[in-house]
């Protein structure tokens, strides 16, 4: 019964989205106030019903109702509760339902927080949001119904892929989707503005918090996935340039560009058409990402079971949304009058360079991701584009980006003084260069690129700190007062940039100075790695809720003293039958010691295949991202972004 109610609620939500998508929009175009007033209630109603649908599916998973196909295929009674809940979105149908839920959540949030928006824009934004929702409801109901029943039903489910049975991955999809789908709001604002034919500073101020919110979630979501890959897959790597990773990275790059170009629209009333275009592209990449993951056109380690019918539906939807919005853009972009001018050396042109580099980088990633498809279609060759492509092509574009990132915040709007910036930051640059070379030498040298990344990370860190110190006049009287009075948006910016600097140092450390050993180890064998002495003590058999495991015990010594005991596991799950490795990691500020235990090498089970990695500065990468996201949320709390906050007169 609950399952059928969920199905029914989903159909109601679908109908409401149709109403919300058409009537208020028609009302706004023809000036009928009564139709326009339908907007908010339908947005709330849609969210209400899709929540019921989602709750019903989650309930089916919690009580293990195997008469539902989706539950039977993806759950099991022996699974811990957390993973029964997360199994709701750990499959195709459920994850699309989560998409729709979050889309409706954002719709309701815009309806609530946007009440002070100009009425016609408000209605248009909500209608566009509803039409996107309609596409997803139809997709669910026509091709991927999560509420389908099964008869006769099995007594036991076939279980969730054990690799997904992990706290990191339980929360990865919701966070990622909050990011992906958050970009739909920006998209709706952009299309709404195109229909209105008006983009101004106020528009940019409304759009920025939504972009920022989506960006924070997307950043956190991508990183959580990367962190999961790092400790769960046990390869010691954290980014593989896999199509599915790229699919989430492309919208991130464009959203980052958008975040910066919206500042230019707000402050200088220019770059409008470009910003609108970025908003469209960012959401298009979100859809493309969903398409790549869900249609299985690209070979990926993440690929789930696929179905051509779904692929065709998503492709058609993609075509409609992207094609339609770009067409509208082509027709209306000339209506968006450009405002202020800007000089080649100014904050705004630095932001333009940021935008160019980020969008070109997104294009490069897209090219590398889709090139195998293109090549297959043209010549029939089956190829893959490997990480070296991305590391080289993408990496090189990041060098000028990081350089400009250090300069940008110190440049003033309109016309900056290049000589002044150079004379102030020249010292910072020289210092970070010397520091990078010193560290490089201390770490025993290595590839020259390692020094370059180290230098860029230090430069960005120092330049960001310098700019902040300069802004608050750190060494003059009453500095504390000025530090506290800084606008939240600029504090957020400093944290965001600082976070990236920290993350860059982490990437450089773990990529260039990481070491790896693979050994057959007998009990009491000792290995030295990364300055630690690792002693293999013994192994034990473990029985978990739905798996059995071998757990190794390794004593980690530094200078003769035990600092930790690491216990990596090799698990064998029962349903579905599948082995996984649980790496054990000893993290310090200086680096991660990472141990994976494999299989026994002999019949007496006292020799085991063991892999050990030492990843210097690995924690900096994760920590840097935390700082970035923290910066994003600080910036989000800026009172300027509060809808209905007293409007400042623009220029």
């Amino acid at each position, binding site marked *: 019964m609950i399952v059928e109610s969920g199905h029914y609620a989903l159909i109601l939500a679908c109908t409401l989205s149709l109403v919300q998508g058409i009537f208020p929009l028609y009302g706004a175009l023809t000036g009928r106030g009564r139709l326009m007033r339908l907007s908010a209630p339908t947005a709330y109603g849609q969210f209400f019903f899709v929540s019921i649908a989602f709750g019903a599916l989650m309930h089916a998973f919690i009580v293990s109702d195997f008469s539902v196909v989706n539950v039977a295929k993806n759950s099991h009674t022996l699974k811990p509760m957390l993973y029964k809940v997360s199994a709701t979105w750990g499959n195709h149908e459920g994850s699309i339902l989560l998409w729709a839920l979050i889309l409706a959540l954002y719709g309701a949030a815009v309806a609530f927080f946007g009440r002070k928006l100009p009425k016609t824009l408000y209605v248009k934004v909500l209608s566009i949001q509803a039409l996107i929702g309609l596409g997803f409801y139809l997709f669910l109901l026509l091709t991927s119904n999560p509420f389908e029943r099964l008869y006769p039903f099995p007594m036991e489910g*076939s279980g969730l*892929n054990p*690799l997904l049975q992990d706290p990191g991955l339980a929360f990865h999809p919701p966070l990622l989707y909050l990011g992906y789908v958050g970009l739909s709001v920006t998209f709706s604002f952009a299309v709404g503005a195109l229909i209105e034919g008006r983009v101004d500073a106020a528009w940019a101020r409304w759009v920025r918090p939504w972009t920022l919110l989506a960006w924070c979630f997307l950043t956190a979501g991508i990183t959580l996935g990367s962190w999961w890959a790092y400790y769960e*897959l046990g*390869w010691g790597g954290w980014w593989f340039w896999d199509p599915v990773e790229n699919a989430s990275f492309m919208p991130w790059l464009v959203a980052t560009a958008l975040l910066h170009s919206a500042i230019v629209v707000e402050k200088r009333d220019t770059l409008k058409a470009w910003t609108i275009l970025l908003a469209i592209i960012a959401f298009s990449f979100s859809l493309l990402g969903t398409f790549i993951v869900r249609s*299985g056109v690209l*070979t990926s*380690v*993440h*690929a*789930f*079971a696929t179905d051509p019918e779904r692929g065709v539906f998503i492709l058609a939807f993609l075509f409609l949304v992207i094609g339609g919005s770009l067409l509208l853009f082509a027709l209306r972009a000339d209506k968006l009058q*450009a405002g202020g*001018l*800007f000089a*080649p050396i100014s904050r705004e*042109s630095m932001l*333009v*360079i940021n935008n*160019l*580099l980020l969008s*070109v980088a997104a*294009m*490069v990633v897209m*090219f*590398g991701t889709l*090139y195998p498809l293109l090549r297959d279609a043209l010549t029939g*060759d*089956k*190829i*893959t*584009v*490997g*990480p*070296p*492509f*991305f590391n*080289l*092509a993408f990496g*090189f*574009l990041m060098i000028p980006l990081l350089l400009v990132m250090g300069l940008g915040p110190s440049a003033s709007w309109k016309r900056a003084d290049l000589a002044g910036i150079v004379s102030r930051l020249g010292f910072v640059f020289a210092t970070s260069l010397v520091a990078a070379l010193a560290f490089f030498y201390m770490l025993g040298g290595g590839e020259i690129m390692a020094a370059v990344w180290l230098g860029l990370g230090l430069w960005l860190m120092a330049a960001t700190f310098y700019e902040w110190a300069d802004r608050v006049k750190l060494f003059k009287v009453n500095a504390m007062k000025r530090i506290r009075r800084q606008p939240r948006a600029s504090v957020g910016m400093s944290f965001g940039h600082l976070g990236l600097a920290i993350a860059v140092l982490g990437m450089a450390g773990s990529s260039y100075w990481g070491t790896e050993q*693979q*050994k*057959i180890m007998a009990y009491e064998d000792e290995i030295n790695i990364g300055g630690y002495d690792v002693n293999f003590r013994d192994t034990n058999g473990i029985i978990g809720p739905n798996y059995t495991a071998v757990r190794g015990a390794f004593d980690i010594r530094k200078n003769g003293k035990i600092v930790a005991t690491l216990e990596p596991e090799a698990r064998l799950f029962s349903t*579905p*039958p*599948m*082995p*996984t*490795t649980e790496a054990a990691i000893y993290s310090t500020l200086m680096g991660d010691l990472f141990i*994976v235990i*494999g299989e026994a*090498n002999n019949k007496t089970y006292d*020799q085991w*295949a063991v*892999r050990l990695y030492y990843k210097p500065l690995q924690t900096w990468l994760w920590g840097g991202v935390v700082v970035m996201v923290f910066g994003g949320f600080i910036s989000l709390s800026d009172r300027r972004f509060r809808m209905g906050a007293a409007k400042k007169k623009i220029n």
Partner: protein
Amino acid sequence: MANTRAGKRKTKRFYLLLTSMTILLLAVGLVLTALQDSISLFLDPSDLAESNLSDGQRVRLGGLVVEESFFKDEDGLTYRFDITDGNETVKVIYKGSLPDLFREGQGVVVEGEINNSGPFFATEVLAKHDENYMPKEVIESLKKRGVFQYSDGEEENI
């Protein structure tokens, strides 16, 4: 002219165009350079036998791991196994750690360099996340060679 607003706008556009073009050209250059060394062609054992690729070319080789062909060397870290597409079989040697889901009789993709004079030395054996999951290229290759067995969905093997 340069002092008028329109003139300024033109100068601004010119700078913007110049910067965009430079960055785009840089990107295209990078893409073309980077692409040369990082593409690997996918082959199945029959393709490999027919191909006239020269030694050292990076490729991915995919097929089924032949039953009872898998064994481990003395050092415990070097593995030998055969990969087949039903028509041709290739001997593979791999030193490193095997993914959790590596099994005889299952589909696998290995990456390495062409070695026309002996076994295929794999530098990487690609991991899959799912016990039912068969690399797409392997399915296509098996279909082409006429040895693909359609499963009824629930069985562990293809």
